[in-house]
């Protein structure tokens, strides 16, 4: 491993200097912090608010904070929020309409000044999730202008993953614990006998510029090696995995599977999975009027395909059964997303598994669908073989 001027090392004070530098530049720094028994994303005034000394224990339908003796800041897994909370907020005003005395309408776009965000501690899975939402909301013929502005002004500091959780499966989704691109700066936390420090790689000119104001040392070989080892080790410690097949094809061939009835017996159609998912982007609109009756506002808010109203057409919802709504979520995420946006909609962050109140596990459902399909194909093959044998006789 060679020393490169683009790679340096920060200590805890350096990390705080980074936060202060970004704040001084007028940015709203957002990062993980401990609140209400979880690691949540919140505006940070200082790096001291990071979850130093906290880890997480997750399972399907289970999330607990656990103290860590090593004092690490980025040794937790994904919390209940993702960065879409800031880039694609839960509620956003789209336009307002005023009706004049003669009935004339004037319609005004909502163009607030968007905050200039700096996200500290973006996991590689979430970097990929942001790239997916970029494609959905700004990659097509029409662009979501609010999202575009917030996104283009956002400064991303990745934190590579060294402590995957039991619900993580990013490697089987083609990702991994390393941050390869899509960031301005990337941190890798190292805690060992030599101390607590953060390896920093520069991913953009803006990243280099910000880092130039921060006291730092050039990266030593030991820190680089330790960082690489920790990330490589994380790759082999994923708690879960998707079946190693084309999930796109699997879902396409499983639309009439019996497994949907099985999962529908457990699913509460609460929509938690869609709320915590870092790529789920669906929204609905609300019309809000004031008491004069001459002023109306159009608001957008997050929606979920588990909601009955989601598919409503006059006469009733297209997808009324829980079976069809769970199927919509899973097949969209893993399969039809490719048709629409040229990639999978899943990054393997595991949030939907962790935050499902009944512990439905997307990897287990995919495996069960795979097993059912295999069994069906085997039966078909046997039937065809038998037919051929009978013909010969």
């Amino acid at each position, binding site marked *: 491993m060679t020393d490169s001027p683009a790679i340096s090392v920060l200590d805890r004070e350096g990390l705080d200097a980074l936060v202060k530098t970004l704040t001084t530049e007028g940015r709203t720094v957002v990062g993980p912090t401990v609140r209400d028994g979880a690691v949540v994303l919140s505006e940070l005034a200082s790096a001291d608010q990071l979850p130093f000394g906290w880890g997480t224990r997750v399972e399907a339908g289970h999330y607990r904070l656990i103290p860590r003796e090593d004092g690490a800041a980025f040794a937790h897994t994904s919390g209940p929020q993702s960065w879409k909370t800031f880039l694609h907020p839960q509620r956003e005003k789209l336009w307002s309409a005023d009706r004049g005395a003669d*009935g004339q309408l004037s319609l005004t776009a909502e163009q607030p000044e968007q905050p200039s965000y700096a996200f500290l501690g973006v996991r590689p899975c979430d970097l990929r999730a942001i790239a997916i939402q970029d494609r959905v909301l700004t990659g097509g013929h029409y662009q979501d202008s609010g999202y575009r502005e917030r996104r283009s002004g956002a400064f991303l500091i990745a934190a590579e993953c060294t402590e995957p959780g039991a619900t993580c499966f990013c490697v089987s989704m083609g990702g991994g614990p390393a941050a390869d691109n899509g960031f301005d700066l990337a941190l890798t936390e190292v805690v060992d006998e030599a101390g607590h420090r953060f390896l920093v790689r520069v991913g953009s000119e803006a990243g280099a510029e910000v880092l130039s104001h921060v006291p730092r040392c050039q990266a030593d070989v030991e820190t680089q090696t330790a960082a690489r080892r920790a990330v490589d080790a994380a790759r082999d410690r994923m708690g879960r995995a998707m079946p190693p097949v084309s999930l796109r094809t699997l879902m396409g061939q499983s639309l009439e599977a019996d497994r949907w009835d099985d999962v529908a017996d457990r699913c509460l159609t609460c929509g938690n999975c869609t709320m915590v998912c870092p790529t789920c982007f669906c*929204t609905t609109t609300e019309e809000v009027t004031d008491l004069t009756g001459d002023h109306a506002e159009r608001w957008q808010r997050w929606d979920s395909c588990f909601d009955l109203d989601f598919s409503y057409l006059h006469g009733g919802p297209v997808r009324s059964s829980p079976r069809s709504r769970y199927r919509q979520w899973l097949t969209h995420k893993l399969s039809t997303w490719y048709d629409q946006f040229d990639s999978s909609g899943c990054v393997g962050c595991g949030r939907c598994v962790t935050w499902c109140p009944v512990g439905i596990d997307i990897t287990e459902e995919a495996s069960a669908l795979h097993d059912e399909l295999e069994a069906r194909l085997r039966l078909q093959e046997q039937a065809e073989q038998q037919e051929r044998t009978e013909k010969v006789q």
Partner: protein
Amino acid sequence: MNDVPLPYRVTQVRDETADTVSLALTPAGPTSLAPFAPGQFAMVYAFGVGEIPVSVSRIDRRELVHTVRSVGAVSAALCALRPGAHVGLRGPFGTGWELDRATGQDMLVVAGGIGLAPLRPLVFDALAAPRAYGRMNLLIGARTPHDVLYSQQVHAWTAAHGPLHCGVTVDRPAPGRLGHVGVVTTLLNGARFEPRNTTAFICGPEVMIRATARDLLQRGLPAHRIRVSLERNMRCATGHCGHCQLGGVLMCRDGPVIGWDRAESLLSVREL
């Protein structure tokens, strides 16, 4: 302009049936939306109530006509508008019928109920250049004789011996009215077309679309020459809200008009 609606003024309101109204709209200000193609739709905004997707049912230079059936809060508010009222309009959105696909071929236009609305501008365009096409057929199905849209126009088409063969059928006849009774596919036998050289355009309830497309397939029409217009819940029309999905199809972007080669498998899965 697709972020914020453009104000349009209602210049004419025409009652088509007991629950359906045609609104003629012109821009309230100096700017207007980009030109619409038959089959495309606009998001029509009723002040203080909401926005719904509505196909254009007539396209003039600056004037657009939308035919709206009162089935929900927004459509009811739109149907209650009087001349002089304002609405907001975004568009044009979605795929059109693409009449060019029928050039040199027989043409079969099949409408069920309100489904005639998005097909009407297609028929006008075809009639404006009848030599470009072979034989033209317009088959219309409605619940009762009172539910046939654009009744004067349809009556003129059925009575005329022009280039267009127009047939009407109803589910339930009305007293004192003679005419064909039965589902719209029963009109196919009377239509004049060579299945292997025909392009079909279908819009209506999904069950009617399915029945018609299957009938046409059996008669030998290739699936990709059967164009159907579908409907799903829509909030944004710009591909961002996720509501209008039908499998991999985003109806606002990839539809509402798609080929039966793509639609058939999607419509054969319940609650997709």
